[in-house]
């Protein structure tokens, strides 16, 4: 029998601690790996009410002290938190009967912990780069940003392989850190279709929908943080053009520093009766809403992957996305969704109107998109791809003087 592979994930967020996309990513990847027979240890930050130690569908979860004194600033907190995480992970790994074969870090937020563990245990380090500082900030402008970018560069330097979730991110990370081609590997993000199947089967979606839109209104859904790069302002500016052709309600889910600015624009346009800002929404309601949407819009200006488009496709909601970053790779225009020009109000209005006016077209997009999800973005498939990367790395490692 093949020896069981043992992996230690380092991540600053893991449910119930959810800040961005890393948390669900690590949850589904670790569960799917465990289902395929890989031993997965997840070391993550603690969270009020969540146990320090639990086994979740075969995944060993350890929540460590995330440094709860007031910190001078976010970046310094990250390094202080890493000190605790590294110390705890070292203690955990040293006591395991079956030694850890691979350390797998998610983003710079656990960079120093991952790098330190690699060297003290002399085991390969892998990293998934979910995003980059230079991409998030559209350039490097401050010392903090430069420090983070240099930490990211160091992390990718120390990593045996750098995993990115789209071809766009592969080329972006290669450019940002000057990495060789053979160090980079693409594994897409995934989506759990079963969750959406269950919602569609069990819930009274029609009744739920009435809380958001009138029966005669089409429901246009935006889900994302209200920050510049997510492009909610592009959608809002497109609303008058869309309303000329079709009666719709625009539901904006999420929160962020642009929230006041966006609602001011809506008020000044006199469109308050057509736009609903829900703020942050609990997951159960969000799932239902995604299943109700007549179109899900992802107008991002920068998007390393675009998980929200995958979720919409799994929810069988037609998608209109801007042709940028990883988003452009998920959606095939006119087949699994509609692609529009990024940061272009006219183009976005055209795409949304086209989808809303043609029910037959909507149904075709829905079916094609759902099939595409099954083929390419199931977590089971992604776990298999990831396991293959681990095995490849361990094959190389076994010939090194560290082995």
């Amino acid at each position, binding site marked *: 029998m093949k020896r069981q592979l043992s992996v230690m994930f380092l991540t600053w967020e893991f449910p119930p601690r959810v800040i961005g996309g890393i948390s669900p990513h690590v949850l589904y990847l670790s569960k799917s790996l465990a289902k395929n027979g890989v031993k997965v240890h997840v070391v993550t930050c603690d969270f009020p009410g969540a146990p320090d130690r639990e086994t979740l569908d075969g995944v060993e979860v350890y929540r460590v002290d995330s*440094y709860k*004194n*007031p*910190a*001078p*600033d976010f*970046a*310094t907190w990250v*390094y*202080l938190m*890493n*000190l605790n995480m*590294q*110390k*705890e992970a*070292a*203690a955990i*790994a*040293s006591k395991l009967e079956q030694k850890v074969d691979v350390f797998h870090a998610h983003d710079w937020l656990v960079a*120093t912990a991952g*790098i*330190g*563990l690699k*060297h*003290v*245990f*002399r085991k390969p380090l892998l990293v998934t780069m979910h995003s980059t500082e230079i991409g998030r900030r559209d350039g490097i402008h401050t*010392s*903090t940003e*430069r*420090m983070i970018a*240099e*930490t990211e560069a*160091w992390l990718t*330097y120390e990593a045996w392989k750098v995993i990115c979730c789209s071809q766009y991110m592969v080329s972006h990370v290669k450019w940002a850190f000057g990495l060789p081609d053979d160090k980079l590997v693409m594994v897409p993000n995934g989506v759990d279709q079963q969750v959406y199947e269950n919602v569609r089967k069990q819930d009274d979606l029609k009744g739920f929908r009435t809380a958001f839109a009138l029966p005669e209104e089409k429901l246009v859904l935006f889900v994302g943080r209200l920050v510049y790069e997510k492009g909610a302002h592009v959608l809002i500016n497109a609303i008058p053009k869309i309303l000329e052709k079709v009666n719709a309600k625009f539901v904006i889910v999420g929160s962020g520093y642009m929230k006041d600015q966006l609602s001011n624009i809506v008020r000044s346009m006199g469109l308050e009766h057509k736009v609903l800002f829900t703020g942050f929404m609990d997951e159960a309601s969000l799932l239902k809403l995604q299943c109700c949407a007549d179109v899900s819009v992802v107008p991002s200006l920068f998007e390393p992957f675009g998980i929200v488009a995958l979720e919409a496709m799994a929810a069988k909601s037609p998608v209109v996305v801007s042709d940028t970053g990883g988003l452009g790779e998920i959606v095939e225009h006119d087949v699994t969704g509609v692609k529009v020009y990024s940061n272009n109000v006219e183009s976005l209005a055209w795409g949304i109107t086209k989808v809303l006016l043609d029910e037959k077209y909507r149904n075709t997009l829905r079916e094609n998109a759902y099939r595409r999800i099954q083929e390419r973005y199931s977590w089971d498939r992604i776990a298999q791809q990831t396991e293959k990367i681990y095995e490849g790395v361990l094959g190389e490692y076994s010939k090194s003087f560290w082995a």
Partner: protein
Amino acid sequence: MRVIIFTWEYPPRIVGQLAEYTSNLSTQLVKKNVETYLVTYHPYLTGLTEEPNGVKIARVANPVRTHIGVLTWVLTLNQEVERAAANIYYQAGKQIDVIDVYDWHFVPAATTLKNALGIPFVYSVDSLEDHRSPGASSPFNMGIKSIEWLGFYEAAAVTVKSEWMRDEVIRIYKVPKEKIQLVLPSSKTWVDDVLKVYAQASGGAGKP
């Protein structure tokens, strides 16, 4: 006995008193037939070298060049200290008796090495944040103090160079008195006193 000393300053890079003290100590340790390694910071003289005094020195640089404070600088330098120390550990057949860490800077590395590889460490106190920045309790100062606290908590033994400092460590960090050893640099038995602490910290292993 095989020992690694961690110090953030060592000649030719001299910031305060620690450079001279650790240089003196490591020279004396070699004379007592202790296999003495030392890991320190230097911006460019990196790598492992053996000095004329017989001390084997690994100098590491910070992989992250831009920083917003001494905390981030220290917390990214520690992984290089760990790398250098781990290299020594593995090359020496996984046998290091004790690590002697000077002040708070490399306490994180000593802590990780202890938890990962079971190498005990001695925390040698030259100065404390409470004395360097009297009355300061900003999040920045607290960050440094939390690392000092970690050092006292995780160390197998603590050394101080004066009775006053011993009392201060007890007063500020509530460290049990038995954990703190006085090693007077002016004393004739100074090196032997240090070696006694090493032997005690490493569980009596590796007699000099």
